[in-house]
């Protein structure tokens, strides 16, 4: 360290110092996991929704790469614009609430929104449909003042119902396609893996296969390793038809595949199932992650899972 501070070039001795400091064998195990991060992010999103204005500027994340830059210089301007818009909208609403009912008081109800209200009173189930059909016409209803507001509320209620239904459908569609592994399969898998090299399995929610039976992701205790397990209903050799990374027959019902990034995957077949065990392949723009296991260990893990499937 005799020359520390003399120039700004590479300093192997300082790098060595810092590396030794960071590679502390007595460091406690990390409490951070993908699940804890996702849970915290969801909780933070809920909090942010209820307290949108509470975040301090220092806690804001930087602009993501590949997106339009969110310069700090522009934020105050956008905030002023946003607040100005809110004030203008509130002023317009206040004027409309006072002036419009006065000017149209005494007029007969002959707008489409009023028709919807009348139809609702006469035949509620059918009226909901007609109100939904009338919903895209707030401009015409707006001219009727307070009566129009009622029509909009009814139409909006119908639209909300439809929205809830579509949201529920979307949520159902968004559910993970891989069911969790059975407890027996998880236990057999962990028993077959080198002890202490992987954490417990978490649900696999990506790369849906044609007939998913079960899936799991196991984070490796060795940095930068992960194990992905997928169980599908398939005939022996089904992996040969994989267009991206076709496997090759190893022996019997055991097949091996390796992608361009060197991620090995073992396929084992039996009882109408395919058990694939390996790292995380570089599919599309995702990051390839090795499993850190030998092919023999991958095959053993896959066979252990297959042994629990009837």
């Amino acid at each position: 360290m005799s020359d520390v501070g003399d120039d700004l070039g590479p300093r192997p001795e300082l790098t060595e110092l810092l590396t030794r400091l960071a590679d502390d064998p007595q460091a406690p195990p990390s409490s951070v996991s993908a699940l804890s991060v996702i849970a915290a992010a969801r909780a933070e999103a809920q909090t942010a929704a209820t307290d949108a204005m509470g975040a301090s500027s220092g806690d804001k994340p930087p602009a993501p790469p590949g997106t339009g830059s969110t310069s700090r210089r522009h934020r105050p301007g956008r905030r002023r614009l946003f607040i100005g818009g809110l004030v203008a909208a509130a002023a317009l609403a206040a004027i409309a609430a006072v002036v419009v009912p006065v000017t149209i008081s005494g007029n007969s109800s002959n707008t489409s929104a009023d028709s919807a209200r009348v139809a609702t009173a006469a035949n509620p189930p059918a009226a909901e449909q007609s109100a939904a059909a009338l919903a895209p016409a707030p401009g015409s209803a707006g001219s009727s003042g307070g009566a129009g507001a009622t029509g909009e509320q009814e139409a909006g209620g119908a639209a909300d119902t439809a929205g809830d239904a579509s949201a529920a459908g979307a949520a159902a569609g968004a559910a993970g396609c891989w069911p969790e592994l059975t407890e027996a399969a998880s236990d057999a898998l962990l028993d077959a893996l080198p002890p202490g090299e992987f954490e417990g399995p978490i649900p696999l929610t990506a790369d849906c296969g044609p007939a998913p039976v079960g899936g799991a992701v196991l984070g490796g205790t060795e940095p930068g390793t992960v194990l992905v397990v997928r169980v599908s209903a398939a005939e022996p050799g089904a992996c040969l038809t994989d267009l991206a990374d076709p496997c090759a027959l190893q022996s019997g019902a055991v097949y091996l595949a390796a992608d361009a990034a060197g991620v090995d995957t073992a396929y084992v077949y039996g009882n109408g199932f395919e058990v694939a065990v390996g790292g995380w392949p570089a599919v599309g723009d995702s990051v390839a992650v090795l499993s850190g296991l030998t092919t023999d260990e991958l095959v053993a893990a896959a066979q252990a899972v297959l042994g629990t499937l009837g």
Partner: protein
Amino acid sequence: MGPEEEAKFSVYVTARRDQVRRTAYLICGDWHRADDLTQIAFVKLYGAWEQIRDHAALDAYVRRCLMRVAVDESRRPWRRERAVEVLPEVTDRSGITADIATGVVDREFVRLAMAEVPAGQRAVLVLRYYEGMDVSATAAALECSEGNVKSQTARGLAALKAALARQSPAGGDSR
């Protein structure tokens, strides 16, 4: 975030967690705070995940989040570092070999020396000499100018040198 993207995110976190945690530890000097910083950085990444088109830039984005959080945290009143007359938990350094460059290092010795370097300069040192980043990449990670990185590097190196010298067994003998 959809399940497919969430799975990709999980794999990324699993793969990068330890490296990010080590960097955080070098900056804050405490493994539990390093966990906190790591968690916050990944939570911010989660929020921006679907806006990130270039997944090759994920590491840089996480690094920027981590640096911003670490420096912000160090400025909070309850985190602010205070100068004390006696260093806490000073270890017996009588057995430390004088030649640090050869790698015989007491981690606590280095950790205490790093703790004496101001937070901003410490972050620059970690990025430059642990992460191996050049001046421009460090400036991008810290969202400052390259000139600032250069000056902070020089000051940080000087501060670290002084801290190491103060804590050397010879008590200030510059090595």
